[in-house]
């Protein structure tokens, strides 16, 4: 598009009446590079993103009655979509579906809207909602998903993921490499391959992990009252440490002893020379370190 057409577009749009927007159906297309950066923000309703093999994005959906404007900023390397509502109360659902080049990087943000992403094969996915759920199915180099009260899930391949929820559950599978998962009261379930660096935190939610630890890799899990169960291959070698004030520790790796000169029980066991390390701590939650 050259500058002359650009001026015309501006002039035309200045005439578009407001009433056309509310309750409107949307159907737009843009040419995009295969590795474009895409960001979309929608407060309420749903955001569905699907990757395809076209160098093009297509947005379809229904704008809620409270929409004041649909802000779009597009170039070949970047697409930004922002649903702006009138006021703060009574925000109606806006349901959007966006088809994007499967290699595009995504940055998705919602408040009560659910986020559903799949068929991506890209560098980066960031998705966050406040009370909506976040579900991602993708092969991505770097994933960050979070919700406050919604559930978050990932399935696919990645070797760097950060997942956070306060009261929602976290379900991750196909992950490996660097992992960070934090919850307060939600449960956490991880199916992982080889972990190089894993950091899991919970207060009262239960944590269940199936994984192996790479040589010189490290997995740390900390809990207050939530139970932590870690399943490792019987051949896993390294340093196994666990401690709990009043929770029960059961293990297939080494044996549990009472803490000398203090309350609680602990475990410290070394096997082999892999340099791997598993460390689990709880206050009252039970701890299991078991063979898969």
């Amino acid at each position, binding site marked *: 598009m050259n500058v002359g057409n650009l001026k015309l577009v501006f002039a035309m749009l200045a005439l578009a009446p407001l009433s056309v927007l509310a309750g409107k159906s949307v159907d737009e297309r843009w040419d995009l590079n295969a590795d474009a950066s895409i960001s979309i923000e929608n407060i309420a309703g749903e955001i569905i993103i699907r990757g395809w093999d076209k160098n093009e994005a297509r947005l379809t959906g229904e704008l809620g009655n409270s929409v004041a404007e649909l802000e779009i900023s597009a170039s070949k390397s970047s697409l930004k979509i922002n649903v702006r509502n009138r006021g703060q109360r009574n925000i109606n659902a806006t349901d959007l579906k966006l088809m994007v080049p499967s290699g595009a990087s995504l940055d998705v*943000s919602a408040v009560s809207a659910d986020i559903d992403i799949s068929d991506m094969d890209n560098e980066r996915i960031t998705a966050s909602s406040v009370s909506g759920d976040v579900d991602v199915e993708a092969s991505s180099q770097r994933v960050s998903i979070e919700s*406050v009260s919604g559930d978050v899930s990932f399935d696919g391949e990645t070797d760097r993921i950060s997942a956070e929820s306060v009261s929602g559950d976290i379900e991750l599978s196909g992950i490996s490499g660097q992992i960070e998962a934090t919850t307060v*009261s939600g449960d956490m379930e991880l199916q992982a391959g080889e972990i190089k660096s894993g950091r899991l935190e919970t*207060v*009262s939610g239960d944590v269940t992990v199936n994984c192996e630890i790479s040589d010189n890799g490290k997995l740390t899990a900390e809990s207050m009252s939530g139970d932590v169960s870690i399943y490792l291959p019987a051949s896993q070698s390294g340093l196994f440490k666990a401690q709990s004030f009043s929770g029960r520790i059961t293990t297939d790796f080494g044996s549990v002893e009472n803490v000398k000169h203090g309350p609680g029980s602990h475990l410290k066991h070394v096997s082999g020379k892999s340099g791997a390390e598993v460390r689990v701590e709880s206050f009252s939650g039970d701890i299991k370190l078991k063979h898969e």
Partner: protein
Amino acid sequence: MKESELQSAIESLPRSIRPQRDLWPGISERLETAGKGDKVNYATPMWRAPALAAAVLLALTGGIFIGRGMDTSPAGQPSQTAMEYALLGTVAAVEREYQAAFRELVPLDYSGLRLEGEEPDALRGSWEDLLQAELSLMAALRQYPTDIYLNEKLLDLRSQQLQFVKQLAMLEQNNWRRT
């Protein structure tokens, strides 16, 4: 358009423009601590500096120090090393700050958040779990006030509680942004 008209139009442009999303998380994860370190003024590596930094940030006046016999070593305990006394002393200081801060939080008021549906209940549930963990931990600490593990767990919990509060503050701030 005259030069002077352009200048006054430029004068009217805002010098501050809020980004459409919070950029801090992207920044925070890239902040390296190697070399800088989370340096604080005591030597023990057992400390989680963010908990203390947060307490200082929240510094509120007043607050009641819940005495847990910090100065005396319960019978049967081995003598504490100087490092451990430093740790316990700092926990006491952190506790003063946190007690004052979190007393304010107990009657949590969600009306400012304008969140819909089951959101406030879910958050309240999480906050109650945090409080429950605190009660249990405090009970244990009354029995074993100088236990290093329990004191570390207390710092972890404070950090988690602070994180929760920050998330609420962020939600509130985002609500303001949308007006």
